[in-house]
């Protein structure tokens, strides 16, 4: 099992959002998270990626196996496309960025500084970063924002070949990606807001 989430509860701004979240993603499989705006997808993914402490529960996966990508792509606008990728490749101990450039059709833009990219091109560069991490589990938050249909399809291809190579993916999205995968609607884990605050001890938070 590549990634197993058990009984996870997450909060944001001191507010419990989701409770008892549990699912498993096997190697070679993807899981699509859905849920209306504000339901806690971003919060959940950050907790799984280890960027935020869950209030309870466990995330089980191999150490250093997760590559996380959110809205902010960690791009430096003064560096060129290939310099940006090369930096992340270096941090993750890789040195070949050409598969990443090809995967998202960035070859022709590789010498362009990142600030001279359009919204969709930036997004592609951000996604290309995933390929240089060499990590098996992708945790993606609305990865196709700003992409047109062609590139959504290209992204789906990249994900499919990642899965075919034994990787796995956890993707929060509002649109249909064209990837064959289970879908999980996280609104079923919504906490009951009318729950009692408890005996007013440490629960005042």
């Amino acid at each position: 099992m590549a990634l197993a989430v058990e009984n996870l509860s997450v909060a944001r701004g001191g507010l419990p959002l989701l409770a008892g979240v549990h699912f498993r993603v096997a190697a070679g499989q993807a899981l699509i998270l859905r849920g209306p705006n504000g339901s806690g997808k971003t919060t959940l993914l950050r907790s799984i990626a280890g960027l935020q402490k869950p209030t309870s529960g466990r995330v089980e996966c191999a150490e250093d196996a997760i590559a996380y990508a959110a809205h902010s792509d960690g791009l430096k606008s003064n560096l060129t496309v290939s310099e940006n990728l090369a930096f992340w490749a270096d941090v993750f101990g890789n040195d070949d960025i050409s598969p990443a450039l090809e995967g998202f059709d960035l070859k022709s833009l590789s010498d362009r500084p990142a600030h001279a990219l359009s919204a969709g091109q930036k997004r592609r560069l951000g996604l290309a970063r995933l390929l240089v991490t060499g990590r098996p589990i992708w945790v993606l938050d609305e990865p196709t924002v700003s992409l047109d249909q062609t590139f959504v399809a290209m992204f789906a291809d990249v994900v499919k070949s990642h899965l075919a190579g034994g990787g796995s993916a956890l993707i929060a999205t509002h649109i249909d990606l064209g990837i064959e995968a289970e879908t999980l609607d996280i609104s079923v884990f919504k906490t009951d807001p009318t729950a009692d605050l408890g005996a007013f001890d440490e629960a005042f938070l």
Partner: protein
Amino acid sequence: MASIWQYANPAKFMRLSDTLLPWVSLAAALCLVGGLIWGFFFTPDDFRQGSTVKIIYLHVPAALMAINIWFMMLVASLAWFIRRQHISALAAKAAAPIGAVMTVIALLTGAIWGEPMWGTWWVWDPRLTSFLILFLFYLGYIALWEAIENPETASDLTAILCLVGSVFAVLSRYAVNFWNQGLHQGASVMRAGAIAGDTEERVSNVFAAPLFMCIAGFGLLFVALILMRTSTEIRKRRAAALMARERMS
């Protein structure tokens, strides 16, 4: 006898504070008013400093509190790290403004005192200088609390700042001492307590009794304020939690 940590439970703390507060406040008011009236109206003038000695009843207690409150914050910060009970962090948060005000009182009364004694409001004497630096630490600490939204993050970061700041405060004290040798009185309150004060440099007996009363008054005032302010912080947290829940439903 249960451990004192049981009062780290907010509800228990509030109950304790509610019962203690009136008594502590009363004692603080009695000591403070009594000590100050005694000192102001019923002590003679110093033969050298004239009536300005009366300032000592404010200056010395405030100065002592200023340092001790920082020390208390340091202890509370350590407790937060070790036990992670929110009361510790909140108590440190509640204490900081009191400490800052005490520092200001010490600085102000000192400056006002310095004018007739040294002929200037301010000199860069090590003691005075380190107080100024202490004031900066208080300001930074309070500002950091204000600036961070997530309460848990704020507790952690301010606690770290308090620890690192304490180390640097001690370091600054030595640096400042090295940089300038001072004009200010040595610490003699403690000696005055031990040896009956007789030398003119020491606080003599006539002044000592009301001075100790004022010190006790300031101390009790601090206890009363910290009980009240910590409870306020707890209520604010709980209100925030309730409000958040309400919004969700």
